[in-house]
């Protein structure tokens, strides 16, 4: 129960931080914001790595493997494509 309250506290505070920062992102950067935040949400990768590496059962290893593939596509594809886009935004 106690860990749940701690986790909830972190959850709620992080949402506030998110709202504060994201409302300041200008519309011209909304697409990179989506792809970039998307890449960050691939953080599930660390959960996937634990499942794939713990090898508790065959099923969890397979699930972990697919999850590592999915999350890595999300992370690598997301950061790279965001970088590619942001490089194009130039001043006069």
């Amino acid at each position, binding site marked *: 129960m106690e860990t749940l309250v701690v986790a909830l506290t972190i959850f709620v505070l992080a949402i506030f931080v998110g709202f504060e920062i994201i409302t300041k992102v200008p519309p011209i950067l909304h697409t990179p914001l989506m792809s970039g935040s998307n890449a960050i949400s691939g953080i599930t990768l660390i959960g996937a*790595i634990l499942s794939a590496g713990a090898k508790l059962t065959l099923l969890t290893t397979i699930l972990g493997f697919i999850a590592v593939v999915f999350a890595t596509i999300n992370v690598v*594809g*997301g950061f790279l494509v965001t970088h590619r886009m942001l490089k194009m935004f*130039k001043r006069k």
Partner: protein
Amino acid sequence: MYNALINLSYLIASALFIFGLKGLTHPRTAIRGNILGAIGMLLAVVVTLIDRQIVGFEVILAGLIVGSAVGVILAVKIQMAAMPQMVALLNGFGGGASTLVAGAALIETVHVRGISNAQFSIATAASGIIGAVTFWGSLVAFAKLQEILSGRPVHFPGQLLVNGLTGLIAIVVGAWLVFTPDVMGLYWILVVISSILGILLVIPIGGADMPVAIALLNAYSGMAAAATGFVLNNNVLIITGSLVGASGIILTQIMCRAMNRSLFNVLMGAVGTGAGEGRLKEEAIYAGKVKSASPEEIAMLFDSARRVVIVPGYGMAVSQAQHAVRDLANLLESRGIEVEFAIHPVAGRMPGHMNVLLAEANIPYEKLKELDVINPTFEQTDVALVIGANDTVNPLARTDSSSPIAGMPILNVDKARSVVVIKRSLSPGFAGIPNPLFAGDNTLMLFEDGKKAILDLIAALKES
């Protein structure tokens, strides 16, 4: 001590993500921000690899290699105009990964170790539902944007009821899982039901409403990651998931506000259904009033102009006209004409779509103006050049309170001295209504594909 070290590293990673997002608040700092985020991710992954639970690396390594290869190919090959599809696909993979991780954690914790508590089972159910909805919803959005499926909204009788029931069944099965997490296979039944829900939720959303769907799926993918964080009791997942969830929710709100519609209205795909009535009015609005012009005539208009505002819409993306538009803007500027771009928040198929295309064509970002900034300047604008936009410049939003786009903030191009509209035909936009702008006294229509029209205009300008 060992765990403390891992958790401290996760804290640093979370801080880097926050700095990274903060960097995205300005184009100058955005690249650095994105790199900071990537470093945070690398740190989190490396630290996880030294976790004691891990007994072998070959499966992890194989997954990382396959995923990286696919990710790199996608990121390098994708065209800027196809960015909405790309983001939809990436959202989907993130959501899918969350569902699988929660499923694996359920087996490990309940079936192998035989432990469970309320937080764990509630979070697992949430992760299963949100992740599967995100995965399948994103795949449908991808297929629609890639035109594998029709981009039109799909409606069937009793849709609301069917969607509502499917959602209800998902919640009931989810609750069942919460109370009996040890029932084998129940989680996967929940995932299948949620997958159907994900498909049902996105099929009624079409065309110009896609920015909302993409933003919402972005929020879902964040929430799925946060739910998985509760499953694993992992703070970096919770923090990151809620950051991304907040981001998606804000973008969804911005998109809905830019269309003056409620989220529910968009999700039901309720726009443009009263088409029978609109047909009649179309005749009255267009009859004998639409003036078509040649590129030469329009070039003459530019010759006497001092300020031009270019208004791109989805049509510019479809015809890949952004590079030609850049050449036209440069040509006009070389003749001392002030050129700016007016960007409607929902122009295109995702938030910021037009900005990315114009940036790709090397148009400096200072020239890309938001709706609130550019609207007061149309009265001092000699020519407003509309390329493949329709509903976002439709004055009916201001004048006709019974219109489906009533109250939607539009770009007031009709206030400019002259308006040139490049469009292939008079066919209505996504809202399915006629546009009195095309019949305006000060409007000239150039019926042509976007790119070809711009190239013709450039040729005509160079001759004159």
